[in-house]
Protein backbone atom coordinates (compact mmCIF):
# COMPACT_ATOMS: atom_id res chain seq x y z
CA UNK A 1 0.00 0.00 0.00
CA UNK A 2 1.51 3.36 -1.00
CA UNK A 3 1.71 6.35 1.33
CA UNK A 4 -0.83 8.14 -0.86
CA UNK A 5 -3.26 5.22 -0.60
CA UNK A 6 -2.87 5.17 3.19
CA UNK A 7 -3.41 8.94 3.33
CA UNK A 8 -6.55 8.69 1.17
CA UNK A 9 -7.95 5.94 3.38
CA UNK A 10 -7.05 7.91 6.49
CA UNK A 11 -8.94 10.94 5.15
CA UNK A 12 -11.99 8.76 4.48
CA UNK A 13 -11.88 7.49 8.07
CA UNK A 14 -11.43 10.94 9.62
CA UNK A 15 -13.96 12.88 7.54
CA UNK A 16 -17.19 11.87 9.35
CA UNK A 17 -15.76 13.17 12.65
CA UNK A 18 -14.38 16.48 11.36
CA UNK A 19 -16.10 19.66 12.51
CA UNK A 20 -13.82 22.14 10.74
CA UNK A 21 -14.27 21.46 7.03
CA UNK A 22 -11.94 24.27 5.97
CA UNK A 23 -9.05 22.73 7.93
CA UNK A 24 -9.93 19.33 6.44
CA UNK A 25 -9.74 20.73 2.89
CA UNK A 26 -6.27 22.11 3.66
CA UNK A 27 -5.05 18.96 5.38
CA UNK A 28 -1.29 18.51 5.86
CA UNK A 29 0.78 16.09 7.94
CA UNK A 30 1.05 18.78 10.61
CA UNK A 31 -2.73 19.14 10.93
CA UNK A 32 -3.81 18.38 14.48
CA UNK A 33 -6.82 16.12 14.78
CA UNK A 34 -8.42 17.72 17.81
CA UNK A 35 -7.26 21.33 17.60
CA UNK A 36 -7.33 21.96 13.84
CA UNK A 37 -9.99 19.53 12.62
CA UNK A 38 -11.97 19.96 15.86
CA UNK A 39 -12.47 16.23 16.24
CA UNK A 40 -14.23 15.55 19.52
CA UNK A 41 -11.92 13.61 21.84
CA UNK A 42 -14.42 10.77 22.23
CA UNK A 43 -14.47 10.50 18.46
CA UNK A 44 -10.68 10.26 18.45
CA UNK A 45 -11.20 6.81 19.93
CA UNK A 46 -13.71 6.09 17.13
CA UNK A 47 -11.10 7.10 14.56
CA UNK A 48 -8.66 4.62 16.12
CA UNK A 49 -11.32 1.88 16.03
CA UNK A 50 -12.12 2.72 12.38
CA UNK A 51 -8.43 2.69 11.42
CA UNK A 52 -8.02 -0.74 13.01
CA UNK A 53 -10.91 -2.03 10.91
CA UNK A 54 -9.88 -0.27 7.68
CA UNK A 55 -6.27 -1.46 7.78
CA UNK A 56 -6.78 -4.68 9.75
CA UNK A 57 -4.23 -3.67 12.39
CA UNK A 58 -4.27 -3.27 16.15
CA UNK A 59 -3.32 0.14 17.50
CA UNK A 60 -2.15 -0.29 21.08
CA UNK A 61 -2.45 2.30 23.84
CA UNK A 62 1.11 3.52 23.43
CA UNK A 63 0.64 4.21 19.71
CA UNK A 64 -2.81 5.73 20.21
CA UNK A 65 -1.34 8.12 22.76
CA UNK A 66 0.86 9.62 20.01
CA UNK A 67 -1.87 9.96 17.41
CA UNK A 68 -2.34 13.71 17.68
CA UNK A 69 -1.58 14.78 14.09
CA UNK A 70 -2.35 13.44 10.61
CA UNK A 71 1.36 12.74 10.11
CA UNK A 72 1.60 10.77 13.35
CA UNK A 73 -1.45 8.71 12.36
CA UNK A 74 0.08 8.00 8.93
CA UNK A 75 3.38 6.90 10.47
CA UNK A 76 1.69 4.62 12.98
CA UNK A 77 -0.45 2.92 10.34
CA UNK A 78 2.52 2.59 7.97
CA UNK A 79 4.66 0.98 10.69
CA UNK A 80 1.90 -1.47 11.59
CA UNK A 81 1.39 -2.40 7.93
CA UNK A 82 5.13 -2.88 7.45
CA UNK A 83 5.21 -5.14 10.51
CA UNK A 84 2.50 -7.32 8.91
CA UNK A 85 4.54 -7.85 5.72
Amino acid sequence: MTEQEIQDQLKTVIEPYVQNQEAFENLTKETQLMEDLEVNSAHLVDIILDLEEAFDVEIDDEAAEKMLTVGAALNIVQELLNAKD
Partner: protein
Amino acid sequence: MIGNDLIYLPDWPQRQGLRLKRFRAKVFTAKELSLIEEAEQPYFIEALLWSVKEAAYKVWLKATHRPAYNPKNFEVQTELSPSGGSQAKPTEGLVSFEDGSLSPYPFYSTQENDFLATYVLQQTEQPFSESFWRTKQQCILHQARTWKLQKNTLNIPYAIYQNRYLELSLSHDGGLFWYIWFTEPQPLPTQEFFSQTNNHKN
Protein backbone atom coordinates in the same frame (compact mmCIF):
# COMPACT_ATOMS: atom_id res chain seq x y z
CA MET B 1 -5.33 23.91 38.77
CA ILE B 2 -8.72 23.32 37.30
CA GLY B 3 -10.16 21.35 34.37
CA ASN B 4 -13.70 20.98 33.13
CA ASP B 5 -15.71 19.01 30.60
CA LEU B 6 -19.19 19.38 29.19
CA ILE B 7 -21.12 16.58 27.50
CA TYR B 8 -24.38 16.94 25.62
CA LEU B 9 -25.87 13.58 26.51
CA PRO B 10 -28.18 13.12 23.48
CA ASP B 11 -25.05 13.18 21.29
CA TRP B 12 -23.18 10.62 23.39
CA PRO B 13 -22.72 7.66 21.01
CA GLN B 14 -24.50 4.48 22.03
CA ARG B 15 -22.10 2.03 20.47
CA GLN B 16 -23.21 -1.57 20.13
CA GLY B 17 -21.78 -5.09 20.04
CA LEU B 18 -18.13 -5.66 19.32
CA ARG B 19 -17.48 -1.96 18.70
CA LEU B 20 -18.81 -1.10 22.16
CA LYS B 21 -16.56 -3.74 23.70
CA ARG B 22 -13.50 -2.47 21.80
CA PHE B 23 -14.26 1.16 22.68
CA ARG B 24 -14.59 0.43 26.37
CA ALA B 25 -11.44 -1.71 26.37
CA LYS B 26 -9.45 1.23 24.97
CA VAL B 27 -10.86 3.82 27.34
CA PHE B 28 -11.69 2.31 30.73
CA THR B 29 -9.73 0.45 33.42
CA ALA B 30 -10.93 -2.87 34.84
CA LYS B 31 -12.47 -1.14 37.88
CA GLU B 32 -14.27 1.38 35.69
CA LEU B 33 -15.59 -1.39 33.44
CA SER B 34 -17.10 -3.02 36.53
CA LEU B 35 -18.84 0.26 37.42
CA ILE B 36 -20.32 0.48 33.93
CA GLU B 37 -21.38 -3.13 33.75
CA GLU B 38 -23.11 -2.99 37.13
CA ALA B 39 -24.98 0.23 36.36
CA GLU B 40 -28.61 0.40 35.35
CA GLN B 41 -27.76 3.25 33.00
CA PRO B 42 -24.46 2.09 31.53
CA TYR B 43 -24.28 4.74 28.81
CA PHE B 44 -24.77 7.49 31.38
CA ILE B 45 -21.96 6.09 33.54
CA GLU B 46 -19.79 5.70 30.45
CA ALA B 47 -20.31 9.40 29.65
CA LEU B 48 -19.72 10.38 33.28
CA LEU B 49 -16.42 8.50 33.52
CA TRP B 50 -15.31 9.90 30.18
CA SER B 51 -16.16 13.41 31.32
CA VAL B 52 -14.05 13.03 34.46
CA LYS B 53 -11.13 11.74 32.43
CA GLU B 54 -11.38 14.70 30.06
CA ALA B 55 -11.43 17.22 32.90
CA ALA B 56 -8.56 15.40 34.64
CA TYR B 57 -6.51 15.43 31.45
CA LYS B 58 -6.74 19.23 31.35
CA VAL B 59 -5.36 19.45 34.89
CA TRP B 60 -2.70 16.86 34.13
CA LEU B 61 -1.58 18.72 30.99
CA LYS B 62 -1.22 21.95 32.96
CA ALA B 63 0.84 20.16 35.60
CA THR B 64 3.09 18.08 33.35
CA HIS B 65 3.08 19.85 29.94
CA ARG B 66 2.96 16.39 28.33
CA PRO B 67 0.35 16.40 25.53
CA ALA B 68 -0.19 12.67 25.18
CA TYR B 69 -3.58 11.25 25.85
CA ASN B 70 -4.33 7.77 27.09
CA PRO B 71 -7.71 7.69 28.85
CA LYS B 72 -6.71 4.64 30.87
CA ASN B 73 -3.99 6.67 32.59
CA PHE B 74 -6.78 8.31 34.59
CA GLU B 75 -8.84 6.12 36.89
CA VAL B 76 -12.11 7.36 38.32
CA GLN B 77 -13.10 6.26 41.82
CA THR B 78 -16.66 6.94 42.87
CA GLU B 79 -19.64 5.33 44.50
CA LEU B 80 -22.74 5.34 42.39
CA SER B 81 -26.28 5.29 43.64
CA PRO B 82 -28.13 1.96 43.38
CA SER B 83 -29.81 3.19 40.20
CA GLY B 84 -26.37 3.50 38.65
CA GLY B 85 -25.93 7.24 38.85
CA SER B 86 -28.47 9.86 39.70
CA GLN B 87 -29.64 12.34 37.13
CA ALA B 88 -30.61 14.77 39.87
CA LYS B 89 -27.80 14.54 42.40
CA PRO B 90 -24.21 15.53 41.78
CA THR B 91 -21.62 12.80 41.66
CA GLU B 92 -18.35 13.21 43.50
CA GLY B 93 -15.22 11.17 43.73
CA LEU B 94 -11.54 11.08 43.00
CA VAL B 95 -9.54 10.66 39.87
CA SER B 96 -6.07 9.16 40.13
CA PHE B 97 -3.16 9.18 37.71
CA GLU B 98 -1.70 5.84 36.74
CA ASP B 99 1.93 6.93 36.68
CA GLY B 100 1.64 8.37 40.18
CA SER B 101 3.05 11.71 39.01
CA LEU B 102 0.20 13.56 40.72
CA SER B 103 -1.95 12.95 43.78
CA PRO B 104 -5.58 11.97 43.21
CA TYR B 105 -7.81 14.98 42.64
CA PRO B 106 -11.48 15.39 43.57
CA PHE B 107 -14.06 15.73 40.84
CA TYR B 108 -17.63 17.01 40.87
CA SER B 109 -20.20 16.24 38.21
CA THR B 110 -23.78 17.42 37.80
CA GLN B 111 -26.48 16.87 35.24
CA GLU B 112 -28.82 19.63 34.20
CA ASN B 113 -31.32 18.82 31.50
CA ASP B 114 -29.35 17.18 28.72
CA PHE B 115 -25.93 18.39 29.83
CA LEU B 116 -23.39 16.68 32.05
CA ALA B 117 -20.91 19.15 33.54
CA THR B 118 -17.77 17.94 35.34
CA TYR B 119 -14.82 19.69 36.90
CA VAL B 120 -11.62 18.51 38.56
CA LEU B 121 -9.82 20.70 41.07
CA GLN B 122 -6.27 20.54 42.30
CA GLN B 123 -6.62 23.38 44.82
CA THR B 124 -10.00 22.86 46.43
CA GLU B 125 -9.66 25.90 48.67
CA GLN B 126 -9.44 28.32 45.72
CA PRO B 127 -12.66 30.20 44.92
CA PHE B 128 -13.81 29.89 41.35
CA SER B 129 -16.57 31.13 39.12
CA GLU B 130 -18.21 29.88 35.97
CA SER B 131 -20.32 31.03 33.06
CA PHE B 132 -22.35 29.35 30.36
CA TRP B 133 -22.97 30.80 26.93
CA ARG B 134 -25.60 29.71 24.49
CA THR B 135 -23.85 30.80 21.33
CA LYS B 136 -20.31 31.20 20.16
CA GLN B 137 -21.06 34.85 19.35
CA GLN B 138 -22.14 35.55 22.93
CA CYS B 139 -19.01 33.86 24.14
CA ILE B 140 -16.70 35.89 21.87
CA LEU B 141 -18.39 39.15 22.83
CA HIS B 142 -17.87 38.36 26.50
CA GLN B 143 -14.23 37.57 25.95
CA ALA B 144 -13.59 40.74 23.97
CA ARG B 145 -15.14 42.96 26.62
CA THR B 146 -13.50 41.46 29.65
CA TRP B 147 -10.72 39.02 29.02
CA LYS B 148 -7.79 38.70 26.72
CA LEU B 149 -8.25 35.00 26.16
CA GLN B 150 -5.26 33.08 24.87
CA LYS B 151 -3.89 29.59 24.46
CA ASN B 152 -0.26 28.55 24.56
CA THR B 153 1.19 26.08 22.09
CA LEU B 154 0.05 23.17 24.23
CA ASN B 155 -3.48 24.58 23.73
CA ILE B 156 -3.79 25.36 27.40
CA PRO B 157 -6.19 28.31 27.69
CA TYR B 158 -5.70 31.21 30.06
CA ALA B 159 -6.89 34.78 30.35
CA ILE B 160 -5.32 38.10 31.03
CA TYR B 161 -7.78 40.30 32.88
CA GLN B 162 -6.79 43.77 34.04
CA ASN B 163 -3.15 42.78 33.63
CA ARG B 164 -3.60 39.75 35.86
CA TYR B 165 -3.19 36.11 34.93
CA LEU B 166 -6.30 33.99 35.36
CA GLU B 167 -6.19 30.24 35.13
CA LEU B 168 -9.29 28.84 33.46
CA SER B 169 -10.73 25.86 31.70
CA LEU B 170 -13.28 25.76 28.93
CA SER B 171 -15.40 23.14 27.28
CA HIS B 172 -18.18 23.17 24.71
CA ASP B 173 -20.67 20.64 23.43
CA GLY B 174 -24.22 20.64 22.13
CA GLY B 175 -24.00 24.34 21.30
CA LEU B 176 -23.21 25.36 24.88
CA PHE B 177 -19.94 26.94 26.03
CA TRP B 178 -18.79 26.55 29.62
CA TYR B 179 -16.01 28.56 31.21
CA ILE B 180 -14.74 27.97 34.73
CA TRP B 181 -11.96 30.01 36.31
CA PHE B 182 -10.26 30.84 39.59
CA THR B 183 -11.46 34.24 40.69
CA GLU B 184 -8.29 35.03 42.59
CA PRO B 185 -5.22 35.81 40.47
CA GLN B 186 -2.97 32.78 40.19
CA PRO B 187 0.82 32.75 40.42
CA LEU B 188 2.36 33.47 37.05
CA PRO B 189 3.41 30.32 35.21
CA THR B 190 7.02 29.95 34.18
CA GLN B 191 8.34 31.93 31.23
CA GLU B 192 8.36 28.68 29.28
CA PHE B 193 4.59 28.57 29.54
CA PHE B 194 4.23 31.97 27.90
CA SER B 195 7.15 31.86 25.48
CA GLN B 196 5.26 30.45 22.53
CA THR B 197 1.85 31.85 23.24
CA ASN B 198 -0.64 32.23 20.40
CA ASN B 199 -3.83 34.20 20.32
CA HIS B 200 -6.86 32.04 20.88
CA LYS B 201 -8.25 30.84 17.56
CA ASN B 202 -11.82 31.58 18.54
